[in-house]
Structures are given as structure tokens and as C-alpha cells.
């Protein structure tokens, strides 16, 4: 696949670098602030940006992203609205953009139409935490056809069979969930994480990025030793409404840590 995401990882691999992938919730605290945040993230060295799509029942998310989703829903942000937002962003940036959404908004929108509209608007990939690849035949097929990366998740509890299934279905990169838990939890780095990621990498040809529970530069640095990319969500969302200088400082420290 020749999408922006794969190109970015190849470019990083050549320099021996690792991807810094921050997450923000679209429409939190407002849509215009989200637009500013995209610029700040890019200027601070983000390689790929995950844009959250607000949903009423975000099962995989902790309190920070739940609250951000609620705020965004209150602003009237919808999946269609996020796609429009990306179309507008593409006038000014070429950074790889991934939507992180729950399945029901996509199902309601229509999977085929979603893939067409999202790619036409400039979305590069999609993560749907409540859609396992077993149930994603349509999305995968349409994604391949239109060039939308389908990024699936693996967890510490995934067995060999699941790893095989997920690596086959995923394009762009594989999302390894660092902990058994929800977003914004405390990271408990056990000794096994390195070997589990190594085991996954043996089975797949695409990069592996790690997320959930990573908030400090130290944690990001530790994870980057094993992974091709580091995803930071709740911790960035928490600072999104605060002063810019503080946010830029924090992002800079993450950027330096992920190498």
C-alpha cells in the first residue's frame, strides 16, 4: 500500500526513527481549537495524527476521552462532520490522518459510503476498537479498494491465532494495546511487552505501534525501544484545553523521547 501512513513509516525507518502518534478528540473543546491543535501537533513533530470521532458510548475509553467525546457531541460533531473537517484540513496539511471511531456511527453511515467519503476527504486510515477483523470483511474489502488503511488492535491477551488473523487484516500499522484496560489507564510495563511485540513482528510485515496508558516521556521512551510508533491519547487530550506553551513543551518532550 502506498498510502501516507506507509510512506511515513518507511521514511522513519530509513532514518532509524520511530513514529510519534498523538490522539485528539475532534471538537474538543471546539472544532476551531481542534484545527489549531493539528497545527501545534505537526509543528511539535507528530508523524501521524489520530482524530477521535465522538460517540455516545465509548466502551474502550477512560474518563478523559469519555468527557472529551461528550463535549464534542455537545458541539454537534458527527462522523460526517469529522470527514468534512478533514477535507478542510487537507487544504493546509499533508500529515497522515487516522480516524478513531466506534463501529455504530460507521455502520449507520454505511461502510462503503464511509470508506469512499473518508478517502475522498483525505483520511488515510481508520481504527475501530469495537470491530474485530472477524466482522470487518466489508470494511477491509472497501479499504483495500479505495486505499484506506484498516488498523486493527492486538492486546496482551491475544493468542497466536488472533495475532495471525489481525496481522492479515491490518494495513498501515498494527495497534498493540499495551495493557489489558481502557485508554488513560496507568501503564504497567511488564517484562513481557518486549517479547510480545517481537512475537507479533515475526508474524507481520507492517509496523507495530503501541498505545493505551502512555503519558510520560519516560514511558514513551521505554515503549519506543520495542515499537515502531508510540500513540499518546488521554494525556494529550487533557492538555488540549490548557495553555499552548505548556502543551508545546509536553509534546516536545514526547518527541525527543520517541526515537
Amino acid at each position, binding site marked *: 500500500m502506498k498510502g501516507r501512513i506507509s510512506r511515513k513509516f518507511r521514511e522513519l525507518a530509513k532514518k532509524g526513527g520511530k513514529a510519534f502518534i498523538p490522539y485528539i478528540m475532534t471538537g474538543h473543546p471546539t472544532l476551531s481549537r481542534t484545527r489549531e491543535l493539528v497545527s501545534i501537533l505537526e509543528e511539535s513533530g507528530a508523524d501521524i495524527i489520530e482524530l477521535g470521532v465522538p*460517540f*455516545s*458510548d465509548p*466502551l*474502550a475509553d*477512560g474518563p478523559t476521552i469519555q468527557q472529551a467525546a461528550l463535549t464534542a457531541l455537545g458541539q454537534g460533531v458527527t*462522523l460526517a462532520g469529522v470527514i468534512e473537517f478533514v477535507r478542510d484540513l487537507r487544504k493546509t496539511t499533508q500529515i497522515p490522518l487516522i480516524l478513531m471511531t466506534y463501529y*455504530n456511527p460507521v455502520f449507520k453511515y454505511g461502510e462503503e459510503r464511509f470508506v469512499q467519503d473518508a478517502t475522498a476527504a483525505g483520511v488515510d486510515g481508520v481504527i475501530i476498537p469495537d470491530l474485530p477483523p472477524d466482522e470487518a470483511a466489508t470494511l477491509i474489502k472497501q479499504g483495500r479498494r479505495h486505499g484506506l488503511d484498516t488498523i486493527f488492535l492486538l492486546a496482551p491477551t491475544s493468542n497466536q491465532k488472533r495475532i495471525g488473523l489481525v496481522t492479515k487484516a491490518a494495513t498501515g500499522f498494527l495497534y498493540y494495546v499495551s495493557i*489489558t*484496560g481502557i485508554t488513560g489507564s496507568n501503564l504497567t510495563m511488564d517484562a513481557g511487552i518486549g517479547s510480545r511485540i517481537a512475537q507479533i513482528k515475526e508474524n507481520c510485515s507492517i509496523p507495530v505501534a503501541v498505545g493505551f496508558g502512555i503519558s510520560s516521556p519516560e514511558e514513551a521512551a521505554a515503549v519506543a525501544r520495542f515499537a515502531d510508533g508510540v500513540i499518546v491519547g488521554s494525556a494529550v487530550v487533557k492538555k488540549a484545553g490548557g495553555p499552548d506553551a505548556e502543551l508545546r513543551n509536553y509534546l516536545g518532550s514526547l518527541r525527543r523521547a520517541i526515537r
Partner: protein
Amino acid sequence: MKKDRDFLKELSLLQETYVGRPTPLYYARRLTEQLGGARVYLKREDLAHTGAHKINNALGQALLAKKMGKKRLIAETGAGQHGVATATGAAFTGLACDIYMGTDDTVRQSLNVFRMKLLGARVIEVPTGSRTLKDAINEAMRDWTANVGTTHYVLGTAFGPHPFPEIVRDFQSVIGREAKKQILKAEGRLPDCLIACVGGGSNAIGLFHEFLDEPGVQMVGVEAGGKGIETGEHAARFAGGSVGVLQGTKSYLLQDDNGNVLGTHSVSAGLDYASVGPEHAFLKDSGRVRYTYADDREALEAFELLSRTEGIIPALESAHAIAELAKYAPGLSKDKIIIVNLSGRGDKDVEHVARIKGMQP
């Protein structure tokens, strides 16, 4: 485990000696006379230990969890009946127990909150979202994601990701198996119609399952009409919803045009839920079961009707099934037979109903 003879033997003995099964199938003579139509039988799940059918599933899953070597049970609860049943299963098996319950539900079912605590469970209030059953499930699933190594999630209804709808149905189908034997003994023939309320749908599928291949037996599932479908304040997923995916389940769902889940309302906490068990969606689409709804007012009238004619105070959930019975039975001839699943007893609702009627309990 489904075919493990020792497990089934243990379960069967406990159903008899601990739960009090078989629950009676009771001919409701005065209610039959008052309605003036079909003969009415009540399947008395309200007489099961802890006061509702929920114990059938909760005890079964608690035993499963023990066998799997889990140390802790978690569950969601709406009306509190499943929470009480799970807390009971946990006490019985010696497992730790945390119950998630929406803040609104802890208020309207405060008696059950106290019962759960008395049984040694911790009740964790869920103040997010609609502060009812849906949000309690979200929170229980989040807990389970983090603690899956040590904890079993006792989902209380025939909903959720596979294999929960099947596990719950299998544990609840004892209701229909008993009812079939009992009605054959009492009347020498199968019933003409079965009626049950449908929240997630576990008591209904428990009664219906054994009869699905009997073409002569009609079935009616009764959802919560709340303040009326046109007001938007209801939990009638079939009447007012469309197909969607929530909490790992594809089924009928109350949602807006953008796929966000809508708030629900019912006088009964146990029916106050935005989606419905996937097997019910299948039975609706295949036409095998007719789904309808009773609104809050009809349910409250039925609550009093059964109390006064039979001396049985039904749970507000079950009162929805009685409300449909009161509409449907009078139009049938006197040789017809209806079985209503009286899924729970109404003690937990007495305070709530008194408040609605402006009386001090």
C-alpha cells in the same frame, strides 16, 4: 461444560434445593374470570430465590466462573434483580463481587442496593451517560477489559458479544422446559400463547426457547412504551428503533441519524435499555414472535390489577407482560390458554410506585 454431566448434575441439584425450582405454573382463576377470555397461567419466576428469574443465569455463571478459577464476579444491573442474583451467586461460591448500577437506578431501586450490600457485594454507582442500565454495562465492560485475568463478567441478559446471548439463554431456558411439562400435566396440551416482557430479553427467551419449534404456540414480547412512542421517551426498540451495533451486539437500537445511542425511559428500570437481545431481533425479523409494548400507565394499572385479583405483586417489568395480557386475553375464547412469565416479584418496586402515586410508602 454444556454437556459436562457433573456440572449439569450440580446445577440441577442447586436449582432444586437452593433456587427452589421448579417454580410453580399457577392457574390464575380470578384474573381469568376478570378478563373474561382465555385461561391464564402464570409461570411463577417471582417465587425463585432472590425474587426473579435472574438467579437462573447468575448462579449458573457463578459456577462457571468458579470452575474457570476466577476470583471475582462483576455485573451490571438495572432493576437490581440481576445485581442481587449475582451477589447471591458470589456469596454462594465465595467469590468477590462488584456490581455496576446507574445512579438513577440506585435511587429508584434503593432496596435492592441495600440487599446487594448485605450479600457482601460492593455497589459502584455509574453517574455517566443516561445513568441507567446501558451505562452500567459500559462500565462493567471497561472493568472486565482491565481485569479479565481474575474476573468473570456475569452479563445479566441475553445480550452482549458472543457467546453471552447463548450462555444466558441456555441458563434461562429451564423456565420454558418446566412450563411445557407443567402445562401438559395441567391441561394435557400446549398453550396457545406465551407472553413475556422484554428488556434485554432473558426471561422471554428463557420461556420461548423450548416452544420455538411448536408452530401452534404464539409468542408475544412486550417492550417498555414509557411515556409513549411519539414522545421519544420509551424503550421500545422494535417500535421505535433501527438496526445498529452496541456493546458488541448487532440488534435493534434506539439511535439518532448519526449512530449515537439515544436516552431511554421506562417506569421500570429493568426494561429501560436502548437495545435488545439479538435472538429477539432474529425472531422479530422471522415473524416467529410478535413484539409490542405497554406504556408506563398501562404497566402501573397491571401492577395493581394483579395485586388485587390474585394477591401477587408483580415486578414493574413483569407488569408490562400483564398489561399486554389484559389487552389480549379478553378477545380470545375461553378454551384458549395463555402463559405469562411472571419474571419477578414487585417488593422492590413498592416504594417507587408509592412515590409515583404521591403516597408515602
